[in-house]
């Protein structure tokens, strides 16, 4: 037998009638006035004699008890208590519970979700286990997870089921069933897999149970759902006003059967006022792109950005998507040079979207440099360079950013360059003459960006998370500054740095994926916190930190304190068309290995309401009989024997 369920919990509100019922018993009532010789004996009779108080003491009278029983029975009858019958066959049972995002879909109009139904069904399965049989519980989210090993204790199994929560991820039911089959394969006796899912599967491949009898039970009902299935944020310029703005691209899709009149609203994280909003009519099955723009303030740049869909529908997880307010178009560039005049500074000054900071090489360690800045160092190669992307021009002989800088080469002839590299895009080095340069030992086939025969004049020294370029000659020792390609080169460096800055150390991720966060070199540990994830410390190595999969959509903040303080905000979104499509899809089970499969809805309930109502009627009938029966006064002598005996003893 399954656990007792209340199909209509609001029926229990009838129990509120117990209060008035008891009140009726303690409230004073209008009485017939009778003149008697003396009230002395009545006064001493300890019954209903509280003349000055609004209430009398509650006495457990039979009619009151009967009426409470009848009312309670009626309340429980209205709440429709029911149980599901049947016993699960099998010595070893694997209970696979789908915890993908679609399981968070609301059921009916109440607060319960499909996962709540699945958990209730899983508990019923636990209760229905045959004596002596054991079970495992497996969670089917992005990855399959064994919640509890083989367990006979129903209490532990139910506790394991209870701790399951829907995640904002695409589910992989097939992997979970495969894990269940793998766990059961080596066990003797009869085996069975019970799958509890809503049928809204992201992967349509048949579920392979490797010959183990599989019982798929579906939960949930048909619901209307609309979702944000994609969100992109970038910085742009208003073509009319020529002012810088944030441009947000949102793709809406309806998975319902009726047209939806929706509002898409942009809100900066931590603020309540929306920055942009748009009303959209979405037809059933239609995809509608929406572009929203706003002009962010300086304080908003880098902050979280929420695109919200309203009114909310059955699945809340896909009604909001997260992004990051892009940084401004003006790119911070720091130029550290030993010489007072710099051709590079001249080229950068010509770009209106560049904010140039000029310092000496020695000031690199002391001046506050923007962590997203492009840093250009001329004539030196410091060990620790702040900022993000870095360019070293004319380094001294020795080791620089992992590249060996060689001796001076006189009159090197430029022979080739990497046209596919973003730094050398759209430019030609034909006709550029270099009077003297230092040879660079480039790493790998693509490490050499500019070559003069066998000598590398420009090399890529990038490390994961940081772009680095080494130019082996002083541009003043060449005629390159006199050519347009030099200006283009400078622009390409800035544009690449701008792209890297827009990514903010990590691009937006999909929930369920691990977060790959680029951090400055030298950072050994970061702290991460986000929705449903308490702050935890993660090791970083080689300019990267890998944060475990984000189970919830939202904004994850990664921060570090050494060698310099910094942080990055990473949006994680569900944005899955398959998961947002909460309509039930056909489930196929690969029965090629034998064993058989059954796909069914949960067994019908056996309701107790009629029996409870009958019980209430019988109790009420008994109450009526009791109240209308003729009261016979007890024999005076027998009743007073106790008091008399005391009086006589006293005498």
């Amino acid at each position, binding site marked *: 037998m399954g656990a007792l369920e209340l199909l209509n919990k609001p029926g229990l509100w009838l129990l509120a009638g117990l209060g008035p019922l008891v009140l009726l018993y303690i409230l*004073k*009532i*209008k*009485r*017939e*006035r*009778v*003149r*008697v*010789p*003396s*009230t*002395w*004996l*009545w*006064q*001493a*009779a*300890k*019954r*209903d*004699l509280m*003349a000055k108080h609004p209430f009398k003491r509650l006495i457990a*009278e039979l009619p009151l008890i009967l009426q409470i029983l009848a009312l309670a029975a009626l309340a429980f009858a209205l709440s429709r208590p029911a149980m599901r019958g049947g016993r699960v066959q099998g010595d070893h049972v694997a209970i696979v519970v789908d915890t993908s995002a679609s399981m968070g879909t609301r059921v009916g109009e109440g607060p319960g979700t499909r996962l709540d139904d699945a958990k209730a069904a899983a508990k019923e399965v636990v209760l229905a286990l045959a004596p002596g049989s054991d079970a495992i519980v497996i969670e089917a989210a992005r990855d399959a997870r064994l919640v509890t090993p083989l367990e006979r204790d129903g209490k532990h199994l139910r506790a394991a089921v209870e701790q399951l929560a829907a995640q904002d991820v695409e589910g992989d039911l097939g992997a979970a069933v495969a894990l269940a089959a793998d766990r059961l394969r080596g066990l003797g006796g009869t085996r069975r897999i019970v799958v509890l899912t809503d049928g809204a599967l992201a992967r349509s491949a048949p579920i392979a149970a490797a010959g183990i009898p599989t019982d798929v039970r579906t939960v949930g009902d048909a619901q209307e759902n609309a979702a944000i299935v994609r969100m992109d944020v970038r910085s742009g310029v208003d073509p009319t006003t020529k002012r810088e703005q944030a441009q947000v691209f949102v793709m809406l899709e309806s998975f319902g059967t009726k047209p939806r009149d929706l509002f898409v609203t942009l809100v900066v994280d931590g603020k309540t006022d929306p920055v942009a909003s748009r009303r959209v009519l979405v037809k059933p099955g239609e995809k509608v792109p929406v572009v929203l723009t706003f002009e962010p303030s300086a304080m908003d740049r880098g902050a979280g950005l929420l695109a919200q869909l309203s009114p909310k529908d059955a699945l809340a997880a896909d009604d909001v998507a997260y992004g990051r307010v892009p940084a401004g178009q003006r790119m911070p560039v720091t130029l550290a040079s030993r010489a007072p005049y710099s051709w590079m500074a001249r080229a950068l000054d010509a770009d209106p979207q560049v904010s140039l900071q000029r310092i000496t090489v020695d000031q690199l360690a002391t001046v506050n440099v923007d962590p997203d800045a492009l840093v250009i160092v001329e004539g030196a190669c410091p060990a620790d360079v702040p900022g993000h992307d870095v360019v070293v021009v004319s380094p001294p002989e020795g080791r620089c950013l992992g590249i060996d800088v060689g001796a001076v080469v006189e009159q090197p002839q430029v022979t080739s360059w990497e046209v596919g590299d973003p730094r050398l895009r759209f430019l030609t080095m034909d006709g550029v003459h270099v009077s003297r340069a230092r040879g660079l030992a480039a790493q790998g086939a693509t490490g050499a960006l500019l070559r003069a025969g066998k000598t590398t004049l420009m090399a890529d020294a990038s490390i994961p998370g940081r772009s680095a370029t080494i130019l082996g000659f002083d541009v003043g020792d060449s005629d390159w500054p006199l050519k347009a390609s030099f200006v283009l080169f400078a622009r390409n460096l800035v544009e690449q740095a701008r792209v890297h800055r827009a990514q903010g150390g990590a691009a937006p991720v999909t929930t369920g994926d691990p977060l790959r966060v680029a951090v400055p070199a030298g950072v050994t540990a970061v702290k991460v916190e986000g929705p449903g994830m308490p702050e935890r410390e993660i090791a970083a190595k080689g300019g990267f930190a890998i944060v475990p999969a984000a189970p919830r959509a939202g904004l994850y903040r990664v921060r570090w304190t050494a060698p310099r303080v910094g942080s990055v905000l990473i949006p994680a979104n569900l944005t899955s068309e398959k998961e947002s499509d909460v309509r039930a899809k056909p489930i196929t089970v690969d029965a090629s290995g034998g064993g058989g499969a059954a796909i069914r809805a949960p067994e019908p309930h056996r309701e107790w309401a009629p029996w409870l109502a009958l019980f209430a009627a019988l109790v009420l009938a008994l109450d009526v009989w009791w109240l209308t029966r003729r*009261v*016979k*006064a*007890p*024999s*005076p*002598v027998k*009743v*007073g*024997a*106790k*008091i*008399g*005996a005391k*009086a*006589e003893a*006293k*005498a």
Partner: protein
Amino acid sequence: MTALLEPAFLRELEALRRRLQLRARSGGGGEHVGKRRGGSAEFLEHRAYTAGDDLRRMDWLAFARTGEPVLKTFRTEEDVVVRLVVDASASLDAGTPTKLDAAKRLAAAVGYMALAGSERTQVLAAGEGLTRTFDAARGKAALPKVLRDLETLQPRGGTDLARSIDAVLQRAPRPGMLVVFSDFLDAGPFDQALGRAKAAGHDVAIVQILSEEELHPPYDGDVAFEDAETGAVVEVTLDAAALAAYTERLNGLIYALRAVAKRLGAPYIRASNVEPSLAVVRRLVSRAVD
């Protein structure tokens, strides 16, 4: 005679009156032998002569034989004052006939038997104190007066039996028989007052008269009882539990009166207002304790 004593009832009383035991002596000359020394013909004892003794009481023969002057003493012959204390409070005005009517009839019966035995009879009305006191009368010829005294009693006011009995004791220098007719629905210390009466030499008799409504309450449902004496209202829901509680309290009172009677060696008669008076008088004459 009157409505209180019909001829048939009188004939029965005449037969019963010789069985009436009057244990108290009031000290006056009468037909009952007293415990004290007195002037009757019944020898009591000898005692030594002391100066001032009446020489006429000297037993000269004994003096001749013994040489010691001794006196012969004799018992006194005393009468008995029968005091009929009738509770005439408002609570006695209940039932058909009323409890007061029943009390008057019983008091008349006792009064008749006393007068027929040449005793003195006095009617006293009790309420919140001693409300009326009539003169004592003696002999059968005084019967009409006693009956008139009784018939003048009307129910009114509250009850304080203890105060009433104490008032009787203060006004009665000679003890006698003290018969109290009441419903005893009184929370006061009447038992202590009865004890003081006994200590003063009175022969106490307790006659409790209750109405049928008090013995077997005919009420049902939600009732507000109003006290006939005080006007106090007590609200009661009359179900089996309430009736049981009332009956328990009533029997507590009955057993308490029975205990008082046993302690004082007094008869205790409990009568209903509709009970035949002759049966009650028979139990009283036999000094029964109901």
